C-alpha cells in the first residue's frame, strides 16, 4: 500500500507536466482547430532558451557576478553548517540561484513568445482559409525547421539547468513504508496546476474565452462579428509558447536538455486526444491518469511497457468514447 502511494505520487507529478504540455496543444486547437505537432519542439526551444538565459548568459563576462550566484552575507551564514543534500543546503543553493532562475524564466518566456509570433505570422497566417489539414501538416514541417534550428544554435546538450524551486528530498512514512518525493518536483507540479487552472478559468468564464471558441468554430463568422481573428490566433500561440517555455524549463531540470524533449511533446498528443481535444478538464484528467498508469506500469512491469501505456490507454478510451473523456461531439444535422 505504501509503495502504491509512492508510485501514485510519482505519477501525479509526471501527470502535472503532461498536463502543462497538453495545455499548449489544447489552447492552439481551441482557437484555430489546428493540432500543433510541433508543440514538443516549441517546448524544446523553451528549454534551450531557459538554459541560455539561466546558464549561458549569467556566465558571460559582462554580467554582474550576483546574477550567476547571489551570495548575500546572511545566505553564506545560513548555509555555513548545512550538510550537503540537506534541505537547508538545497534551499540556500536555490536562493543563490534565484536571480538566474528568474532571468532564465523571463528570457525563455519572452524568446519563446517571439518565436511563436514568428511561426504564427510566417506559417499559420498565410495558410488562413486553407484546410485545417494543411495547417496541421505545416506544423509537421515545422518540426524539421525547429529541430534543425536548435541544432544550429545550440550544440549544448547534457547540460544541467537550475531547478525552478528548491530541490531536496522530502521523506515521510505512510502505511509502514518509507516514501519520498523531491520538493522540486512538488514545486513544478504546483506551477503546472496553477497555470492550468488559470487558463481554464479564463477560457470558461471570460469574454475572451467566447472569442476563442467562436473563432475555432467559424473563423469568418467570428471575424464578421467584430472579433479580431488574427489577434485571437496570435494569443493562442502566445499561450502555447509561454506555457511551453515553462514546461521546457521544467523538463530540462528533470531530464536534462536534449532533442528528445521534442519527441516527448509528440507523445502528449495521445494524452490530449484521450481527454478530448477541446476539453481542458478532460485533458487534465487524462494527464493524471496517464501519469499514474505509467508509474504503476514502470513499477509492476518495467520500462518497456511503461512507454506504450499512453498509446494503449488512448486507444481503449476513444473506442469507448470516440471524443475522449470530455471532448464535445460534433452535432451533425442531416
Amino acid at each position: 500500500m505504501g509503495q502504491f502511494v509512492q508510485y501514485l505520487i510519482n505519477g501525479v507529478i509526471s501527470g502535472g507536466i503532461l498536463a502543462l504540455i497538453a495545455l499548449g496543444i489544447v489552447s492552439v486547437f481551441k482557437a484555430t482547430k489546428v493540432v500543433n505537432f510541433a508543440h514538443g519542439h516549441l517546448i524544446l526551444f523553451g528549454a534551450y532558451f531557459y538554459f541560455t538565459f539561466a546558464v549561458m548568459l549569467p556566465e558571460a563576462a559582462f554580467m554582474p557576478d550576483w546574477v550567476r550566484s547571489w551570495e548575500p552575507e546572511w545566505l553564506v551564514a545560513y548555509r555555513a553548517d548545512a550538510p550537503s543534500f540537506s534541505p537547508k543546503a538545497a534551499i540556500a543553493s536555490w536562493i543563490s540561484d534565484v536571480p538566474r532562475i528568474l532571468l532564465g524564466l523571463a528570457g525563455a518566456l519572452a524568446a519563446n513568445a517571439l518565436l511563436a509570433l514568428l511561426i504564427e505570422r510566417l506559417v499559420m497566417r498565410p495558410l488562413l482559409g486553407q484546410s485545417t489539414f494543411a495547417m496541421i501538416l505545416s506544423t509537421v514541417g515545422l518540426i524539421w525547421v525547429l529541430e534543425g534550428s536548435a541544432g544550429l544554435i545550440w550544440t549544448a546538450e547534457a547540460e544541467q539547468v537550475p531547478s525552478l524551486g528548491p530541490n531536496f528530498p522530502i521523506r515521510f512514512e505512510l502505511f509502514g513504508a518509507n516514501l519520498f518525493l523531491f520538493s522540486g518536483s512538488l514545486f513544478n507540479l504546483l506551477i503546472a496546476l496553477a497555470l492550468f487552472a488559470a487558463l481554464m478559468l479564463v477560457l470558461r468564464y471570460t469574454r475572451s474565452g467566447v472569442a476563442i471558441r467562436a473563432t475555432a468554430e467559424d473563423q469568418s463568422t467570428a471575424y464578421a462579428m467584430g472579433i479580431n481573428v488574427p489577434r485571437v490566433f496570435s494569443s493562442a500561440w502566445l499561450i502555447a509558447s509561454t506555457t511551453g517555455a515553462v514546461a521546457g524549463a521544467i523538463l530540462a531540470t528533470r531530464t536534462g536538455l536534449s532533442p528528445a524533449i521534442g519527441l516527448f511533446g509528440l507523445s502528449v498528443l495521445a494524452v490530449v486526444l484521450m481527454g478530448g481535444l477541446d476539453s481542458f478538464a478532460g485533458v487534465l484528467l487524462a494527464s493524471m491518469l496517464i501519469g499514474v498508469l505509467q508509474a504503476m506500469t514502470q513499477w509492476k512491469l518495467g520500462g518497456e511497457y511503461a512507454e506504450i501505456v499512453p498509446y494503449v490507454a488512448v486507444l481503449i478510451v476513444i473506442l469507448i468514447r470516440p471524443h475522449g473523456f470530455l471532448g464535445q461531439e460534433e452535432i451533425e444535422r442531416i
Partner: protein
Amino acid sequence: ETKQWRVAASLPMTGPFATAGQLVAPAFAEFEQQVNDSGGIGGRPIKVEVEDSGYIPRNALANFQRAMAGGDLHFYFGDSTGFMELVGPTLEGDNAVMMGSTSFASSLANPAERPYQFMAGPTYEDQFEILLKDIADKGGKTVAFVYSDTEFGRDPIEHGRKVAADLGIEVVLEEVTKAEGADIENHVTKLAQANPEYTILQGYVTGVWPQLIGGARAFGLQTQFMGTFWGMEKVIADRVTDQAGPFLDGYQGVMPYRYFYDQEDAPFYQQLGAYKKSINPDFPGYVVTWELEGRLNLELWKLCMNRVIEADKPVTPDNLMAELRAIDNWDSGGFFGQPVDVVDHKIGQGRVYRYSADSKLFTPVSDWIQV
C-alpha cells in the same frame, strides 16, 4: 591506380546523438590534415569525407553507397549498430570495404559473419564482464542493471546475467528506461526498493545517467553507480559537476582506453597533444574519449595500410583485414596501457575508473582486465 586513399564516415550530426557526432567530427578533419602533413600513407595523401546520418541506419547506408560510387574507398567509419548490421551482409566482392564504427555491439565482433567489420575496443558484453569481475573482486554481492530500451542498451544484458550468475552476484533489479528523458523519480524509487550494492548503467550517451545518479544521491541511496564507454566522458561529468554539484563524485565505470590526460609513457598521446596545440593554440589539453574511439579506428586502419604497403601487397579490403587480424602485441603508444592483440576483430580489454568531483578526473581503480 588511385592517387589518394579515401576514407569516408557517417556521423550523427543531427538527431538524438548529435552531441556525440559533433564532438567527434573535427577529429576526422584533423586526422586527414595530420597524415597528409606527414607525407600521407605510403607516399600518397589521404582524403576524408564526413557525412551526416541523423543516426538513421538507412541514411547511413545511402551515404555509404554514395561514397562507394565516388570511386575506390579504403575505409569507412559507421555510426550505429543498426547501420553496421544493415550494411554487413552487403560487404562482399566489389562492395567490400574495411569498416569500423562507433558501435561496440557484440554481434559485430564476428570474423566469420562480419569479415570486414571490426571494433576498436571490447564489446559491450566484454565491458559488462569487466565491471562484474571488478565487483566480484571487491566482494560485491548484489547488482542492478539499468539500461535504455534500445538495441544498444539491451546488447550486453543477457550476457551480463550469465556472468553475474557465474560470479555469484545476484541481479536484484533490471530496470528499463527511455534512452533520453527518462522518468527519474520512478527509477530511483525502484532502485531504492531493490537496494543493490552496485548499479550498472548501460545504453546512455549524454543524458539520463547524470540525472539518475543525481536523483539517487539526493535521495541518499548508497549504491555504487557504474557505467560503460559512452557514459564515461569527463566533459559531461565536469559539466554536471559545475552546473549541478558534486554528486557524480565516486561514480565508476569501464573504459577501454586511457584518458588523454594520462600521458605518461604515451608517446602517441603526447604527439597528438602537441599537434593539436600547434594548429590550435587554445587547445585545452584534453581529448574526449569519443574522439579517441574514432581516432583509434583510423589509427588501426592506418597501421594496416602501412603494413600492407610494406608487404608490397595490393591494398584490398581482404589484405587490410588480414593485417588487422594479425595485430599482436601492438603498442598503441597511448590508447592502451599495455600492448594489445586483436582477437575476433576486437580488442578485449579495459579497466575500471572512478570519477572525482574534486580533481575532475577519472582515475583507474583496477588493473587492465582482459576478457
